[in-house]
């Protein structure tokens, strides 16, 4: 099919004398921006919305916060109200989770427990973030001997089972006048930053050779500015994912510690304490263990799903 040598014009376009006159150039037309409206974050949000499990996880966490804050306020019972005539009640409308051996409403106690767990989650996430990011960032940024030494320390600490360190620390601080909850914070905060340090180190190592980091150096930026203003913000994706996935570990660890009696203890109602108390009556009154255990599992699932979803959404390679 030979190309047309005749000129064919669209309908409605009839060339006249004016058609072949040079067109005026619009000013500024040339340096347009493509104006693509997405940023890294809006792209990520769009992607995570498509991940049903992650969305479910997100809403469960929101529900958890709402229940933790408002639940105990709304409940007609407090976590320590005893009613010795009402002990060991199976779940009823009045006591949807039943009552325990002292007649305390389980549902209220589970809701109180969520406060503890969330507090642990948030505080440990914060400590994890602060310690891990700074440690990993400094190791990666300075490299060489500094990196070697710092990461060898991490490797050594990694080799020691975390739970043992946590138990040791809680035993150490147990009778020193530190509240048991703060004890748990310290123990978890001091041990759970290791994966974050490694991940951040890996990210910063690759980022620091990128040209924008070199450019920051050439314009005279001091080291801390380069690290905290340029490198770490660009590593936020993996950092957020790691924090989100560390939270369920922290929550579980607190529950475990309380279960074995090293964390908070009665009458404070952490899920671990509840589970511990309930275990004694597990044969006859299984619901006493069931609800706290369900709460722990559900919370952990929620954070894990959200974390996985975030990991996929924030992966720059999958960017569209």
């Amino acid at each position, binding site marked *: *099919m030979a*190309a*047309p040598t005749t000129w064919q014009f669209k309908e409605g376009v009839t060339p006249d004398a004016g*058609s*072949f*006159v*040079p067109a005026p150039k619009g000013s500024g037309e040339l340096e*347009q921006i493509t104006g693509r409206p*997405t940023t890294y974050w809006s792209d990520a949000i*769009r992607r995570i919305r498509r991940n049903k499990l992650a969305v479910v996880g997100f809403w469960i966490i929101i529900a958890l916060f709402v229940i933790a804050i408002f639940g105990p306020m709304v409940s007609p019972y407090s976590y320590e109200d005893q009613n010795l005539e009402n002990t060991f009640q199976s779940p009823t409308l009045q006591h949807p989770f039943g009552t325990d051996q002292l007649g305390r409403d389980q549902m209220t106690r589970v809701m109180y427990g969520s406060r503890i767990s969330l507090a642990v989650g948030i505080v440990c996430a914060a400590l994890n973030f602060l310690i891990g990011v700074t440690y990993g960032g400094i190791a990666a940024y300075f490299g060489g001997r500094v990196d070697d030494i710092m990461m060898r320390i991490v490797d050594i600490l990694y080799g020691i089972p975390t739970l043992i360190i946590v138990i040791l620390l809680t035993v150490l601080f147990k009778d020193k006048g530190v509240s048991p909850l703060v004890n748990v914070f310290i123990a978890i905060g001091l041990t759970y930053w290791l994966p974050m340090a490694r991940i951040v180190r890996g990210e910063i190592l690759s980022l620091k050779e990128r040209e924008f980091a070199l450019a920051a150096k050439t314009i005279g930026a001091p080291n801390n500015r380069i690290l905290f203003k340029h490198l770490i913000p660009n590593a936020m994706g993996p950092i957020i994912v790691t924090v989100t996935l560390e939270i369920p570990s922290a929550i579980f660890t607190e529950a475990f510690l309380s279960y074995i009696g090293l964390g908070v203890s009665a009458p404070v109602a952490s899920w671990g304490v509840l589970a511990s108390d309930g275990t004694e009556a597990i044969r006859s009154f299984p619901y006493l263990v069931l609800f706290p255990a369900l709460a722990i599992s559900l919370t952990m699932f929620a954070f894990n799903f959200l974390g996985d979803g975030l990991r996929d959404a924030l992966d720059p390679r999958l960017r569209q």
Partner: protein
Amino acid sequence: MNENNILMRIQDLTTNFHTYAGVVHAVDKMTLTVPKDSVVGIVGESGSGKSVTMMSVMRLIPNPPGRIEGGHVWFDGAALGMPDRMEKNGPNKGMVDLLSLPGDAMMKVRGRHISMIFQDPMVSLNPVLTIGLQMTESMVAHGLATNEEAWKRAVEMLALVGIPNPEERMRDYPHQYSGGMRQRVMIAMALSCSPELVIADEPTTSLDVTVQAQILELMKELKAKLKSSIIIISHDLSIVAGIADKVVVMYAGRILEEADVYDLYEKPGHPYTMGLMKSVPRLDAENRERLVPIEGSPPDLLAPPVGCKFAPRCKYAMNICREQEPPLVTIGEGHRARCFLHHPTAPAVPGFVKVG
């Protein structure tokens, strides 16, 4: 045009990418004829659609988000050995539409009748397989040879592309080769099944200048010795000047100019081609005259401008250029251009050879 002379005819090929931001019109009604035993150069910048066109021919467009929306890719049926799929009548008699082939039939075409050389030899070779294995793989997979025959032929091909001690080099791994040698291996692999068409997509872009010269000289030698047609894609006008018989200039998914190589450089018929030539410094230039750039940037393919896609950047744009896209008209022997400046009513422009 005598159909016996034509190896491949791309006709009204249109490929779009459906992204969340909209539809990217990557290739728009592209029509191109590739004669047998010739070299066609496709020149274009990023976004011109040159690579997407060839990936569409090979049907390697990822789907989603890409989709070949229309057109045909007619290929010499006798060469393919698919007599039952050939067109019986009409201008494409004796040719097979590659776009209509089912997946497994197309797989038989790739590597055997049409092969491709990619830009970056560092990543195009499998690092865990020996060169020998990779070279023989294609021949054996297409049933052209047994393992031993393929091995012998591979050694011949390596010698043909100038690899010293080919027998021993067959047992080496890609990381033991330099960049230039790896590209030679890619060329040898592409030629191993004696394809009728070789598509080289920016074959020298990632190589050093002296290595690039080696590869270009090699390709010139192969052009003289072999019967395959070659399509060379490049963003560099200078590279195709030494090897192509015909050159096609693409922009925003369409052809703006197509000509015999001597005509294109001596009598360019499109402001874009002229602009490219003026904006590139020549090594043999006498003085350091200021370059004349093409103002502006390539168009956004999500929302391309109405009318001629080059008009926003064109020094000579007229009112009609903003309203309607010019058709590709013949302005000389084998020379077509897509520009209203060739219309009889259009004013004469200094430095522009107007026809018609």
